[in-house]
């Protein structure tokens, strides 16, 4: 395969919200930018998302920066970095304004103000989430518009382009990045690109759990694996978010998201296979709480045949509030209901029967260790010059639980910061050799290799094991076994068959991705082993949850030498006790309200609910009000 050489100021990897906004930010500083995307341009989690975006103060001015950042930190059990949460709160409005500039249009009220969902998503203390008519498609069209614009700087993009590895230079104990190698499958060449800075915005690891995931196929953890190979430190890799409510059947729908805690209505409950309620007042719970309840029941043998539980929304359609509830769901969760109808039938989509659901891998809270501008850190917490991360690739914002609708905002907030930082960081080149030659040699030598097995075999076996052992429920014994089996699979990978074809070489792609997946499995399992107690999304069946009041810490890892992963713990600043108590009380209050509501006389209950639903839907159609 031919190796083509190129040079840019900045290379950005990934074309979701984070990559696109980073590339545009660097271009706006006058840089020449190359944006690489292994999926067709802008085809990403950002595009297939629900398109709901956190914007502070979008509902009420009372929503302060402190309230938002403290929501994020406390709901993430304080293991995230305070600086990241603050940056998020500072920039959420300007990030959304930037998306508006690219053509994103929310629903507007009569005064021309953007409408919110009308209720706080699970774990938020304010209603501050803005939804869009076509969900993530609206968001993606805006990203596409940003890349279409003609501007001062220079922005090229390349799709079907797998970023393989970074070129690093080590001098005076300092690592600096000088570009990297790309497989451009559409042109059938390797592209060796030199650059002063690289932004990794290609996060996500859902495919490690396929088919138990609702993310894009390309979520093979490339960002984490590539960064770690270049000497970066990763944080909180044990914290994988499993959304609690995904379809279990048929195979084509398995893992697809069917609901959120907030879409359970005021009266939704989770039941185990025997019909016993295992969690109520869902609406006021976080994703982690719901997923843990299901995982616990399944672990104790009270799950369904498909390894799930039931999300029962039937109580919501008992009285006069039934139609308003249906209306809100249709307008606010239409795309989820489509999946419900297709996988469970139309009576399920009318909420007449409980839905069989199970958790599904959705988001990686962990990621590359950075400062709040996306500057990546090495093992010693020193900056790696010229390496930045943004979006899902970046770790340290969410801690142990990500609040709904924060990720699409995060992508733009940290994408723009990283893109700017990449543009202004002066090139640092000591002139000493980089590992460029050996990187190119490694990938070239793989091509045309004969072997018995293929990358896909290893990936499929790994996915099964990971779902079982580092999925929504974990224990010491299983995880230790998994750890051992990973190294065997890594050896197997070196003997895999790789064809020599140039254009879209699937065997090559599969081996490259299998390697990244295996390394990510190592990060996750070893981090998870070292966090001995359940916390947030990390649910251990062999220990009790971390007791409150203990000092929060983050689990971090990096390659000490080849094949040798080192785990360290870093203490984190705890949120003020007062703030923690206040938030817990607010959530407790919400739960109590929902409990009370359940026991009110039907007529009164309906009255309250109709009012609530009307607020959420921004008014109800006449026939609904009439019925009420």
């Amino acid at each position, binding site marked *: 395969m031919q190796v083509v050489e190129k040079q840019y100021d900045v290379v950005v990897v990934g074309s979701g919200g984070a990559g696109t906004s980073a590339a545009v930010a660097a271009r706006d500083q006058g840089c020449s930018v190359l944006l690489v995307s292994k999926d067709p341009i802008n085809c990403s989690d950002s595009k297939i998302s629900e398109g709901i975006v956190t914007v502070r103060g979008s509902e009420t001015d009372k929503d302060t920066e402190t309230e938002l950042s403290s929501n994020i930190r406390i709901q993430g059990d304080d293991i995230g970095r305070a600086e990241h949460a603050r940056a998020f709160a500072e920039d959420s409005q300007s990030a959304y304004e930037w998306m508006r500039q690219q053509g994103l249009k929310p629903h507007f009220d009569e005064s021309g103000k953007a409408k919110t969902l009308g209720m706080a998503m699970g774990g938020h203390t304010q209603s501050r989430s803005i939804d869009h008519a076509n969900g993530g498609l609206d968001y993606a069209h805006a990203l596409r*518009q940003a890349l279409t614009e003609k501007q001062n700087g220079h922005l090229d993009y*390349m*799709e079907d382009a797998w970023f393989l590895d970074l070129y690093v230079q080590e001098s005076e104990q300092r690592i600096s990045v000088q570009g990297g190698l790309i497989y451009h499958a*559409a*042109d059938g060449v390797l592209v060796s690109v030199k650059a002063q800075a690289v932004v990794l915005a290609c996060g996500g690891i859902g495919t490690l759990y396929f088919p138990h995931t609702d993310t894009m196929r390309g979520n093979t953890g490339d960002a984490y694996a590539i960064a770690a190979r270049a000497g970066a430190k990763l944080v909180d890799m044990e914290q994988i978010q499993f959304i609690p409510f995904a379809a279990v059947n*048929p195979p084509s729908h398995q893992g697809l998201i069917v609901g959120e805690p907030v879409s359970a209505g005021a009266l939704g409950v989770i039941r185990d296979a025997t019909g016993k309620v295992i969690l109520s007042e869902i609406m006021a719970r976080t994703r982690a709480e719901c997923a843990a309840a299901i995982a616990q029941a399944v672990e104790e043998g009270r799950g369904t045949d498909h390894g799930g539980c039931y999300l029962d929304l039937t109580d919501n359609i008992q009285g006069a509030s039934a139609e308003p509830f249906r209306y809100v769901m249709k307008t606010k969760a239409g795309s989820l209901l489509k999946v419900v109808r297709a996988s469970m039938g139309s009576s399920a989509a009318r909420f007449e029967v409980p839905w069989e659901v199970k958790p599904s891998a959705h988001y990686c809270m962990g990621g590359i260790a950075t400062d709040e501008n996306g500057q990546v850190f090495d093992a010693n917490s020193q900056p790696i010059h010229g390496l930045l991360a943004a979006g899902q690739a970046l770790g340290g914002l969410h801690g142990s639980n990500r609040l709904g609708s924060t990720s699409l905002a995060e992508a733009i907030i940290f994408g723009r910061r990283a893109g700017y930082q990449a543009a202004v960081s002066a090139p640092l080149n000591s002139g000493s050799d980089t590992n460029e030659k050996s990187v190119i040699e490694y990938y070239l030598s793989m091509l045309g290799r004969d072997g018995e097995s293929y990358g*896909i075999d290893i990936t499929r076996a790994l996915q099964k094991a990971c779902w079982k052992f580092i999925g929504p429920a974990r224990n010491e014994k299983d995880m230790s076994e998994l750890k051992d089996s990973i190294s065997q699979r890594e050896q197997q990978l070196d003997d895999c068959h790789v064809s020599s074809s140039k254009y*879209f070489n699937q065997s090559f792609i599969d081996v490259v991705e299998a390697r990244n997946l295996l390394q990510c499995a190592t990060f996750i399992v070893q981090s998870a082993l070292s966090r001995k107690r359940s916390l947030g999304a990390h649910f251990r069946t062999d220990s009790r949850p971390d007791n409150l009041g203990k000092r929060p810490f983050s689990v971090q890892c990096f390659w000490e030498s080849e094949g040798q992963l080192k785990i360290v713990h870093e203490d984190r600043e705890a949120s003020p006790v007062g703030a923690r108590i206040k938030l817990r009380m607010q959530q407790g209050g919400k739960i109590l309200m929902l409990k009370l509501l359940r026991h009110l006389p039907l007529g009164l209950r309906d009255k309250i609910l109709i009012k609530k639903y009307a607020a959420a839907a921004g008014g109800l159609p006449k026939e609904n009000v009439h019925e009420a």
Partner: protein
Amino acid sequence: MKLKLMVIREDKVELESFEYQQQVIGEKPVVLDVLLQYQENQNKDYAYRYGCRNGLCGVCTVEVNGKPKLACKCRVGEGDTITPLSTLPVLSDLVVSRQAVSKQLVEKLPVPQGTGQDNNADNTDYQRLNRCIECYACLHECPMHEKNDLTNRQADYLYGNPYSLLRIQRNLVDANATEEVKEKSLKLARDLGIEACRDCKGCRCGVGINLKKDVIRPLLFRLPNGEPDKSIEKEY
């Protein structure tokens, strides 16, 4: 269930038979179920695209019995034949090169600047067009697109297609777009060969956007001697 799948490597082209094994009783598999199983059991380095499995990312389009379909949504039946899109150059097996379509409008299509006009406008027309998932199913039998050099994987496309016209029309219904942006957008439509639409039977969208009514006709109307040809009139 027996099916046929096309295998294309370098310059070798073959139709392979495959027997799909049901995974659960009563299963009605979609094309993607077949592709996943075919790769796992019979052709380990089979190249095909998919992303979301949910009809949203738009990357999995293939042809089933000669018609463009989303692999993740289209149910398969006995004897179906699965081939790559015939409207774009093949890279390998079911994977076609999409980049020339994707890049066609870059730095050419003017972009509405600023916000503020849309806050009090009716944005329904705009949002209707945003349903587009960029699956490129609409390129099927488009005479304008067929004028491009479709054999060359690296060629740029001079002529447009329904998708590019949709993006242009999006500007025309964007409350934030100035007259200048609209004029330039229309000029681009002409440069891409929209005249071909005048005597064309019209195009179909994979997710049900009414391309004739919401894209082609309004664009033709805005052009000088804008009346569309009589033949297209009948279609509406």
